[in-house]
């Protein structure tokens, strides 16, 4: 496969010390939350944890110090992220802001936007959400219809976003909107940074099948935001969003978000499990070990300034499949009632219900495979 070189994961600095410090910090600061909150943990919201993590310098790590960041290497950030996920830390509140909105503002935002938003993001206090999907634009993102018209006072926004994770607790939304009247498909789109307390915005909860309120519909009814809300170049929204999706797809969260289940399985099995469980543990370990290599190599490529769109998609596809497989395979082998209250049973139930979303959020399996097929020269 041409251009599919493996990049060595070679972060600068003392990585072992970084891990030890963070593990110590987590031991002292991680809330003793319910075991279920440790699974799918980038959806677990805990504002005081996010603030403490920010104060300790583990949020916005790659942002320059002048904006409150700590100017660390992206691969140092990677190490921190995988430690947080492996520990099941409740990183959901600041997750999107740290992972994609912050880096995007740094890259494309104006100086004013950087000064205004980045310090809050790095402090783990300012949360963001992603306004891409619309009722008529899911997989077909270029069908976005929400409009922003430039007027003398600023941008006037009308339309609707949907499935917006965390809109109900976020301060800002980075939205993809149609700024050129009559434009079609991926032309004429721009990104706007919208303060969610602006008048005319209505956020309605959508309750998911687990009974949780994670995502929302967001309505824009003649919402007026300043001219300065435009991020990057007018009309370049599509290009910017694509770059953002690269950040979204290859991280360790694509295979470590349900790590708590594997931990619980191993702990429940004890040091000498029966042969069938031993086999399952071995199989899952081979998968997670390999996924980690793939994800690290992709992170290294990203850190080297290249665009690993295809590699990131490979990580997402295999990671999603692994995380969807794991609860099914554990359930197939472990004797456990649906309503049992031990850790393993609770985790199993929660992840079985959550897992269909893994291959939807961040791009569906079919879309992701389409990107890989393009990388193979088939499209």
């Amino acid at each position: 496969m041409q251009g599919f070189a493996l990049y060595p994961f070679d972060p600068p600095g003392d990585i072992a010390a970084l891990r030890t410090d963070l593990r110590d910090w987590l031991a002292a600061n991680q809330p003793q939350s319910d075991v279920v909150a440790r699974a799918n943990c980038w959806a677990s919201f805990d504002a005081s944890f996010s603030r403490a993590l920010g104060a300790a310098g583990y949020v916005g790590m790659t942002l320059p110090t002048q904006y409150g960041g700590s100017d660390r290497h992206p691969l140092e950030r990677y190490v921190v992220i995988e430690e947080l996920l492996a520990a099941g830390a409740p990183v959901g509140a600041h997750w999107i802001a740290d992972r994609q909105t912050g880096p995007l503002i740094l890259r494309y935002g104006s100086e004013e936007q950087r000064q205004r938003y980045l310090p809050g993001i790095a402090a783990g206090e300012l949360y963001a959400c992603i306004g891409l999907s619309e009722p008529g634009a899911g997989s077909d993102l270029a069908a976005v219809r929400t409009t922003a018209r430039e007027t003398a006072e600023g941008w006037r926004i009308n339309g609707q976003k949907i499935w917006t994770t965390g809109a109900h607790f976020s301060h800002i939304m980075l939205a993809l909107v149609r700024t050129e009247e009559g434009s079609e498909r991926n032309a004429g789109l721009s990104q706007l940074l919208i303060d969610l307390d602006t008048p005319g915005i209505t956020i309605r909860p959508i309750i998911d099948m687990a009974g949780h309120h994670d995502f929302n519909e967001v309505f824009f009814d003649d919402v007026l935001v300043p001219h300065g809300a435009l991020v990057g170049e007018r009309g370049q929204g599509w290009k910017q969003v694509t770059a953002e999706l690269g950040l979204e797809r290859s991280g360790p969260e694509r295979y470590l978000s349900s790590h708590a289940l594997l931990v619980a399985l191993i702990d429940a099995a004890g040091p000498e499990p029966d042969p069938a469980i031993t086999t399952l543990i071995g199989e899952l370990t081979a998968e997670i070990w390999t996924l980690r290599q793939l994800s690290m190599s992709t992170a290294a490529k990203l850190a080297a300034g290249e665009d690993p769109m295809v590699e990131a998609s490979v990580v997402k596809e295999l990671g999603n499949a692994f995380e969807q497989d794991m609860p099914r395979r554990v359930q197939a082998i472990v004797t456990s009632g649906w309503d049992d209250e031990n850790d393993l049973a609770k985790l199993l139930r929660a992840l079985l219900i959550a897992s269909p979303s893994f291959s939807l959020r961040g791009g569906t399996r079919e879309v992701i495979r389409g990107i890989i097929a393009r990388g193979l020269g088939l499209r």
Partner: protein
Amino acid sequence: MSAARDMLCDTARAVFAEAATAGIAPVEEAGFGLLLVPEENNGFGGDWGDVNAVLQIAGVIVPDLPVAELIAGEAFQPAATVSLMAGAMGRALSLSIDHVNTRQQFGRPLGKFQAVQQSLAAMACEVRAVEAAAAALASRLDAVGLDAAAADFEIAAAKLRANRAVGVVTAIAHQVHGAIGFTEEYDLHRVTVPLMRWRGAHGNDAFWAARLGRQVAGFGGRGLWEAMTARGA
């Protein structure tokens, strides 16, 4: 890749191409048996990264010749097999891509059909996973000074992962090739049959899963993560 390794790979490609018709002799004569022998003993002084690169090429061109046995000792055969498998899977993928880009049905190349694209994407993911496993195993072996016992975790994980990829890769490769891929004259079986053989050689899925599972059960839940991070990066 280093310039030295590039040169090594160029040589391997040329020598293996000759060996494809002439048998193992050209590989022996070219000195590949000395790849891991230190320079002070008049060897090539290569590391496992070199072996991995050479064996992947062997997996593409001469999957039936005993190149792995020539280069590395018994304890390293499971690791060597992962490299061969990565190469052979890469070959199955490139044959498949070439085929679907040329073979026309319903008035267009097969590769233009979404169902075919999706299958090949799934296959590519598996190939990529095995390449990554082979590379990570190589760097672990190099880090521990080619001590197979110190890389037992990685050998088990990589061989098991490669074994599990065989089913997907061979099934999809043959599916998209249709009947032509099932013939003796066409090249696909030259890599798919060895892949099926290697899946059971030097430890099948059950063997490595049990071996890895026992190690991990000993680590404990949290211990697995600590062990993985302590063993590299």
